[in-house]
């Protein structure tokens, strides 16, 4: 097992800056995608994760070589948190030939294989069985790696979710199930779709160790993730982390969100994960005053440069239309 996996407990000043900057990158990236979409520079179905940075970075910051991440339709942040290059990622979302998928995957089907972000998927819960395969493969090949599956609360309604919990528990696979429960599946509150509102309860049914955490508290997410990763690496099987969070934007760009209560939205804005982390790091003396401000400015400046570069790239062309169907 490699010695290079990052330590799990208290952050050093260096690590604090790194996670804060990474969260700001996710935020700035999503805001830039939103802007480009509004300007007609990006097409397709775009699902943003603004407000959900703590789960992606809380887990991604602890992963190393040999670990794999498997996302869903709202996974720009998961890919960035795993180490994907923002320019190649934005190029893919913007349909450029230089994108990770040569423009053929797009926003919902991102693949940055060399980073360990194996794939995202447009099928709700479809990534969960895939992650089991990543875990099985890591174990058989002896890499010590864990596989992380990110999904939303809606995935808990899918047969593939339940089949996967059963199989992962039975085979003691090193999978970490991460449910970003933001209380809504598309346009409906979770309670409209299921009588079981804590998805961690489903994990308990299959005997999988599980925890519900404040998904907007990076340190809480990181702590739960550290325990899950350690469990997986030592061969003790899967963990289910339910991260309670909130989606500050609509289900997709263009969704007016009329189905949401404005007071609810306002209350969650108060819990913004970046602001909370910045205040905590400042209070703990790990960073100077108002660390969110400077890190946000740097991230936005970086994304402005990335966007300019991407928009100058050529679109994917017809020469690639029928390549990569088979080897």
């Amino acid at each position, binding site marked *: 097992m490699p010695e290079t996996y990052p330590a799990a407990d208290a952050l050093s000043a260096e690590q604090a800056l790194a996670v804060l900057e990474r969260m700001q990158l996710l935020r700035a990236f999503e805001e830039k995608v939103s802007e480009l979409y509004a300007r007609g520079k990006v097409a397709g179905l775009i699902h943003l994760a603004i407000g959900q940075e703590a789960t992606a970075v809380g887990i991604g910051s602890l992963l190393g070589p040999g670990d794999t991440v498997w996302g869903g339709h709202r996974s720009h942040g998961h890919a960035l948190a795993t180490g994907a290059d923002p320019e190649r990622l934005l190029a893919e979302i913007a349909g450029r030939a230089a994108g990770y*998928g040569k423009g053929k995957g797009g926003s919902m089907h991102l693949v940055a294989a060399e980073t360990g972000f194996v794939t995202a998927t447009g099928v709700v819960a479809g990534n969960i069985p895939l992650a089991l395969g990543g875990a099985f493969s890591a174990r058989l090949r002896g890499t010590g790696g864990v596989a992380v599956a990110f999904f939303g609360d809606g995935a808990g309604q899918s047969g593939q979710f339940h089949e996967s919990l059963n199989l992962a528990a039975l085979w003691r696979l090193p999978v970490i199930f991460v449910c970003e429960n933001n209380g809504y599946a598309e346009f409906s509150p979770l309670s409209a779709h299921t009588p079981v509102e804590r998805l961690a309860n489903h994990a308990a049914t299959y005997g999988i160790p599980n925890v519900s955490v404040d998904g907007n508290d990076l340190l809480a997410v990181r702590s739960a993730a550290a325990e899950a990763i350690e469990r997986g690496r030592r061969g003790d099987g899967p963990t289910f982390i339910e991260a309670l969070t909130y989606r500050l934007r609509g289900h997709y760009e263009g969704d007016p969100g009329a189905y949401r209560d404005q007071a609810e939205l306002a209350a969650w804005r108060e819990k913004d994960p970046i602001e909370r982390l910045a205040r905590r790091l400042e209070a703990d003396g790990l960073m100077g005053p108002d660390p969110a401000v400077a890190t946000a400015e740097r991230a936005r400046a970086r994304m402005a440069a990335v966007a300019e570069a991407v928009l100058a790239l050529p679109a994917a062309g017809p020469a690639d239309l029928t390549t990569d169907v088979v080897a």
Partner: protein
Amino acid sequence: MVDAIRAAMHDELAADPSVVLFGEDVTVGGPFGATNGLQDAFGTERVRDTPISEGAVMGMAVGAAATGLRPIVEIMFMDFATLALDQLVNHAAKLRYMSGGQLSIPLTVRVQAGASGAFGAHHSQSLEAWFAHVPGLKVVAASTPRDAYGLLRAAIRDPDPVVFIEHRALYWGKGPVAVGEAGIAPIGRAALRRPGRDVTLIAWSRMAATALAAAEQLAAEGIEAEVLDLRSLQPLDLETVLASVRRTRRAVIAHEAVMTGGLGGELVASIQAAAFDRLVAPIGRVGAPFAPVPASPALEAAFVPGPAAIVDAVRYTMAGSIASREEAG
């Protein structure tokens, strides 16, 4: 044939440590003994029984294939592949493309398809047309023990997902097998089973044997049928098919799948588009009636096309040949 299938899996498991095998009851050989002894030989990590969860098992196999392994998944009856279609169609078939070539999915899905034993509608379907219609999937069907061995080894070695179609009515048939690397058959090549002058019969799986039986009957009537066993349904070996039809100038396609929407239609369209000038008669098709597979043995016997159906189709084609086109050469 079932021994040849087992031997192919054995030899690939032995040759490549990244090959693994998942399926329901595979450690006890499954319903037909195809996997007997493989767990004893290769251990409990590489050969594993799965719960009755085709969706999750297929997805797990795809994820494993994407991360360095070569999984073989046995789906007990092709009818149950429906439960695994999301993972097979939306992920296995598409990850190479959507990733721009970053990912390779070297997955083999073994299924047993076709009617026999009066097992009824949920244990008897031939759905190969569905899989051949999905860009990113390869589809092969073996009709002989030699091809079962050779094509299965090729499927396991293939960098792309391959649906390997078996037929339980052929499992107990015997024939020579070329064991070893030399016996590996290429995917994408049809096989000439019987040369003939008057009409090209195109078939696969059990119907390839049925077509040979029909050819024998036709020979007694002075009609010499050429029999092509397609073997590879995706990609199709159109080159071999066209070379034959250009010579015989008539064609009949026979498959056990329901005729409507079956691959016969795809072949008819492809052949006439390329070789219309050489045809002296419309191309014929033989397939099952447009109904689910019935359970009663008498009905099943009426449902599955036999040699007589192919003989009738050939006679019809011969009688319908246009003399002026024949004379024109």
